[in-house]
């Protein structure tokens, strides 16, 4: 196995406050890697650094052997490293089909051609429909995304992400705000799409983490507390301390 995404000495300071401190993280190719930790541990900051939505104060990030530390968020997406968002990120005013098509449109390169009719996008319709059906939204093809329920919006988001054919997915709390029925559905979906891909996810739902991930990194107060598979991590006294707070007695 080789490293797909690697961060070393990753640090982010906000006006003197250190949100992420000297984090080393290696995500192996083809694995599902989870990033967990109590509230305020710096998971989201770390996630935003890795996806280049924030610029690190120090440290380097390499993706597939290439240094991406100074690249823009849009450019790393072009390399095949695609993120999702905590709050479902769909284009509300577009139809389900159009949502997926926006991602496929990237294959044409940049869409600066404002003089051409959108009819040229019809070439993606069949394939887009396939992605939509693969997440069980076939009946909603021409509905506006705004009309979908929360769980379905998340499914649409995944369909859109898959349409980019990313090599690596970064999922920010994919189960946040979801009912149990939806959790099981999305969980199965993640398992299915992980084939041939690398996934890094931030997640609160520990049963999902236990079920899905090959490797877990625990963050607390901006630093790496423990790393390993679920059994190792869940038995670590440091982790139990951080979660239950016994250390503060």
């Amino acid at each position, binding site marked *: 196995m080789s490293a797909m995404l690697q961060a070393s000495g990753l640090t982010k300071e906000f006006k003197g406050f250190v949100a992420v401190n000297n984090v080393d993280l290696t995500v192996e190719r083809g694995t599902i890697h989870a990033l967990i930790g109590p509230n305020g541990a710096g998971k989201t900051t770390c996630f935003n650094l890795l996806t280049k939505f924030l610029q690190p104060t120090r440290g380097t990030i390499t993706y597939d052997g290439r240094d991406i530390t100074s690249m823009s968020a849009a*450019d790393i997406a072009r390399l095949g490293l695609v*993120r999702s968002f905590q709050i479902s990120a769909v284009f509300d005013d577009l139809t389900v089909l159009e949502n997926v098509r926006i991602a496929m449109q*990237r294959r044409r390169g940049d869409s600066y*051609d*404002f003089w051409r009719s959108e009819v040229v996008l019809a070439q993606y*319709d069949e394939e887009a429909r396939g992605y939509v059906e693969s997440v069980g939204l076939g009946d909603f093809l021409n509905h506006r995304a705004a009309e979908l329920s929360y769980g379905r919006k998340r499914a649409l988001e995944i369909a859109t992400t898959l349409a980019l054919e990313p090599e690596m997915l970064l999922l920010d709390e994919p189960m946040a705000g979801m009912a149990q029925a939806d959790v099981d559905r999305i969980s199965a979906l993640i398992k299915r799409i992980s084939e041939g891909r690398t996934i890094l996810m931030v997640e609160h739902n520990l049963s999902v983490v236990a079920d899905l991930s090959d490797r877990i990194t625990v963050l607390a107060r901006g630093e790496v507390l423990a790393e390993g598979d679920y059994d190792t991590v869940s038995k670590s006294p440091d982790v139990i301390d951080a979660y239950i707070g016994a250390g503060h007695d």
Partner: protein
Amino acid sequence: MSTSENTKVALPAMTHTVGMPRHQKIIFVLLLGVLLALPFMVYPVFAMKVLCFALFACAFNLLLGFGGLLSFGHAAYFGMASYVCAHAAKVWGLTPELAILAGTATAALLGLVIGSLAIRRQGIYFAMVTLAFAQMVYFFALQAEFTGGEDGIQSVPRNDLLGMFPMSDDLTFYFFVLAITYGGILFIYRITHSPFGQVLKSIRENEPRAVSLGYRVNRYKLMVFVLSATFAGLAGATKSQVFHLASLTDVHWTMSGEVVLMTLLGGMGTVLGPIVGAAVVVTMQNYLAYLGAWVTVIQGCIFVVGVLLFREGIIGVLSRILKKPL
């Protein structure tokens, strides 16, 4: 008829429409019919004024309704283009189409400069930056030599079109203006229904997500900004040929406000909204002119009532009732 039947059979069951929906085609044809008849029903100069402002509002709507960017300085492009066009026609003796082209190109360039600085900020800050630059353009127009300061550029000649066809008759010129504005409106429709337009809508709906899909959003924003400024300039340049005049009114910040009013009143993000909004506002200004300063008060009241009662604007409400994009 038979061909459309055939294509229906040949295509697999496509549930969504490709290209312009039928009802919109009908609307565009009806619109053309109305506009062709208009100068025979009302004073041609008034009809041309409506056309110029309709194009101006459509240009603004391209930026606000589809790009999600609220510019508060669109008078800069409208006004500057009108000055350059007037100067080109009067001093350089250019024909109308070349003078208008010169004005439009100036607006595009100005849009490129201001836009590339403004898009670095978002929301209210973006609006403030565009307003600040528009004020700078206003003071430039007030101070510069060629703009004639308080007097503006007066008695601008309308030279022969292509150097061949006399345009001094208002009715004749109307059809030239109609060709420009109708063509402009169709082009703007195309922009919003192009691959570029799709990406633009996605940025409007959720910018971080568009970034995460690999779109360099600032380039799209700059592009729509320049396009919007260009069409605003086309409208302004044409207007100076219509009225034989370029004046400070066209670069004043109230002009920026007026185009916001037209667009919101008619329906932001709709195809017809800005045209209807412009027609309503211009008609009001013309037919209520005897009320003097009260026109502004009435305009203000209508705006307040509009925002409170029907936020989607006239066409927005109609579109919701008919369940069709208008």
